[in-house]
């Protein structure tokens, strides 16, 4: 029996040797649901801008205004057709090469060839004007270009980053952290870059761990394994708020939970039918009791953070089931024996699909199901892969879809709105089967509009059309819930989700 005793003792020692406090004093550990499979900015660039490995030519402040990034300044010709960008001096990539115009031209040309936001811009030519000067010539004036140059897919990488012409072998960016270890799809480790051109980072290392399940991420921060956990599920919030060594931050972000619907469907074609569905929703109840962030009820699609596009004078939408029933009755819908509305022998029955990537969507979908049932609309809820929604949009099978649309993916939502509502009023994630003659023209006009007052007026006209016509029903403005360990100082959240701002953070003294 002696050898067995020895083996048992050894294994016990191995376990004891492996255990220890979960927090590393040198490493900031971050957890989020987002997987990455590559170092390609077009695919997974958001991970690298968030971890501050890669940087773009322009940056965005919390109000969506453009700021200098790798370009210290920019100017647009009077005809609006050429943008001139002046790069910062003395910026070096992580491989030691200097940032110059040739590197920028190459990175942007590669970004243009791949699916991404830059493809939507009418770019004719990108050229180096001198060592630090870059010019972008357009086929027509296009205001959103500045916002596109702040997007994660347009980050500037060292020429040595690319192999085979356009594929990224190992990312060499310019940020305050450089890539240290890359284990897709679960783990990225970054280390402080001492040659950074700006204010150097204070925490030496950061580790990003993908956690697929929201409950697991909540447990990770409770166990001290991660310092910051992004995108928490509503069910974990109360538990986390009760923890002494964890703070929960709730930050409004320009993302809206909304019901995308098929306005070409015979039940949803009339505007009053859509309005009735909107009035049937108890947004206050969903915000307070399900998402647990009161005050986030949405009365329009564009959140307040995007001030140019937000209507301050629009009243909140109060739940009014009586009016909803009257509107539906005026459209010929009558309650059947089971309370479900019927018209010409057809029951008012629809399918609402949503996806699991945003943990609160499934819960909100079931609440909507119950609330619509109260006015006689039967809804079946289905959870699909997110791709099922644009796919069903194109094959015409979509009826209702609950989505969390990110209007801050690009700092100016114009290009996104043009994609969602520009093509005769239809887009993969926007309207479906809906037509409005005024909207596409307004969106096209804004691309060239350089007067800020007129830009704002037309943007608000677009917002009003969407709020009145309801091609998509707004439900809630989105709140990013983040759990932060007490030892983390100077935590900040970028509402555009471009940057985790880890270089500004530090650890509290033990």
């Amino acid at each position, binding site marked *: 029996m002696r050898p067995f005793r020895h083996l*048992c003792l050894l*294994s016990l020692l191995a376990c004891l040797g*492996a255990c220890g406090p979960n927090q590393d004093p040198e490493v900031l550990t971050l957890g989020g649901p987002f997987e990455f499979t590559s170092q390609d900015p077009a695919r997974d660039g958001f991970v690298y801008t968030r971890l501050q490995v890669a940087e773009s030519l322009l940056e965005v402040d919390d109000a969506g205004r453009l700021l200098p990034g790798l370009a210290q300044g920019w100017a647009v010709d009077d005809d609006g057709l050429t943008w001139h960008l002046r790069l910062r001096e003395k910026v070096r990539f992580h491989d030691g090469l200097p940032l110059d115009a040739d590197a920028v031209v190459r990175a942007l040309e590669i970004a243009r060839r791949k*699916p991404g936001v830059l493809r939507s811009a009418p770019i004719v030519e990108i050229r180096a004007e001198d060592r630090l000067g870059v010019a972008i010539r357009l086929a027509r004036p296009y205001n959103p270009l500045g916002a596109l140059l702040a997007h994660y897919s347009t980050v500037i990488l060292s020429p040595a980053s690319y192999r085979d012409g356009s594929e990224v072998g190992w990312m060499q960016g310019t940020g305050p952290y450089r890539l240290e270890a890359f284990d897709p799809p679960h783990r990225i480790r970054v280390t402080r870059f001492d040659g950074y051109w700006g204010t150097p980072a204070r925490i030496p290392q950061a580790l990003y*761990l*993908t*956690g697929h399940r929201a409950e697991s991420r909540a447990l990770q921060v409770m166990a001290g394994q991660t310092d910051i956990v992004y995108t928490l599920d509503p069910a974990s919030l109360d538990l986390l708020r009760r923890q002494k060594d964890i703070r929960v931050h709730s930050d409004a972000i320009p993302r809206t939970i909304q019901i995308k619907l098929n306005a070409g469907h015979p039940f949803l074609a009339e505007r009053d039918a859509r309005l009735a569905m909107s009035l049937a929703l108890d947004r206050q109840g969903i915000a307070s009791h399900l998402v647990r962030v009161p005050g986030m009820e949405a009365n329009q699609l564009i959140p307040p953070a995007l001030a140019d596009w937000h209507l301050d004078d629009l009243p909140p939408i109060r739940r009014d089931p009586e009016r909803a029933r009257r509107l539906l009755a005026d459209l010929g819908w009558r309650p059947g024996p089971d309370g479900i509305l019927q018209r010409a022998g057809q029951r008012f029955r629809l399918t609402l699909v949503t996806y699991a990537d945003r943990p609160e969507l499934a819960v909100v979908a079931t609440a909507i199901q119950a609330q619509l049932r109260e006015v006689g609309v039967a809804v079946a809820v289905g959870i699909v892969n997110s*791709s099922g929604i644009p796919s069903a949009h194109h094959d015409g099978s979509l009826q209702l879809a609950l*989505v969390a649309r990110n209007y801050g993916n690009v700092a100016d939502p114009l290009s996104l709105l043009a994609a969602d509502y520009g093509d005769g009023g239809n887009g993969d*994630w926007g309207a479906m089967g809906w037509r409005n003659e005024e909207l596409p023209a307004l969106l096209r006009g804004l691309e060239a509009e350089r007067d800020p007052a007129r830009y704002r007026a037309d943007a608000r006209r677009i917002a009003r059309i969407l709020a009145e016509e309801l091609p998509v029903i707004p439900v809630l403005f989105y709140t990013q819930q983040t759990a932060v360990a007490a030892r983390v100082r100077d935590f900040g959240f970028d509402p555009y989700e471009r940057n985790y701002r880890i270089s500004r953070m530090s650890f509290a003294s033990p």
Partner: protein
Amino acid sequence: MIHLFLKRLGQAAFVCWSVGTLGFALMRLLPGDMAFRIAAGRYGYDQVNLAAAEAVRAELGLDRPAWRLYLEWLFDLLRLDLGDSLVSGLPVLGEILHLLGHTLLLAGAAMLIAILIAVPVGLFAAFRAEGWFDRAALVASAFLRAQPVFVIGLLLLLIFALELRLFPVAGFDGARYLVLPAIALALSMAAVSNRVVRHSAGAVIASAFFAFARVKGLSFAQAFVRHGLRNGALPVLAFLGIQLAGAIEGIVMIESLFSWPGLGHGLAHAVFNRDVPMIQGAAMTLGLIFVGLNLAVDLACHLVDPRGRSDE
């Protein structure tokens, strides 16, 4: 032996073909557009649109007839080329080997811990048959076996990660991350295997040849080491093979619970992303592990039992 090898090789080839074909057919029977699904995996869940899906469709030739794609896959399989992942674009073989390394590490650690628990507990229970230890081991085994492996994992998480904060909750970034998933799996495995060891050792102790060895004048320990161990090991080895195969199911659950980047976790994600080459590669690898385990058990029995060798 050669006959055995050839038999297992034939099984391996059949597993590769059948699992791969099944994966190919199932993925095409699922509702939804593959190009959109793959584009969502590549460009982000809310970045997918028609343009991205069409780019994926053109790049991967997804509009070609299914039979043609199947024949191409079969031909590549004969050349041991599993293709590239539709999501990451990297060779499937490399990704599978990366995931397999993590799975084998977890399975190996769990197996080692399970043996360290099951053999001493089983033997001690056999030596004190019907005593309090034997009965306590029986109750503990029944309790542990009655729990799904993820319940054991959750209990360990609650105690050692959340309360005591000794181990991480999930992920993989060093040896500390291995401990809880390996112990969860090992407890589930040891719950049955210690009873197999106990009954096997008990049968040896009650046998005529063991009594004869004792009558010859050997001490209990001498008699057990010389005559009991090998005889008792045969059913244990055969059971270990079955248990390892069962452990692969447990590994899929444990990998998901602890976000362990192994084959089971990879397979689940490949299914979610409709990454057909990865699904086929991961499923085939799991199938080949079954065949390999059977071969390993056959070989072990062959080495331990001289009667099998003398039959040849």
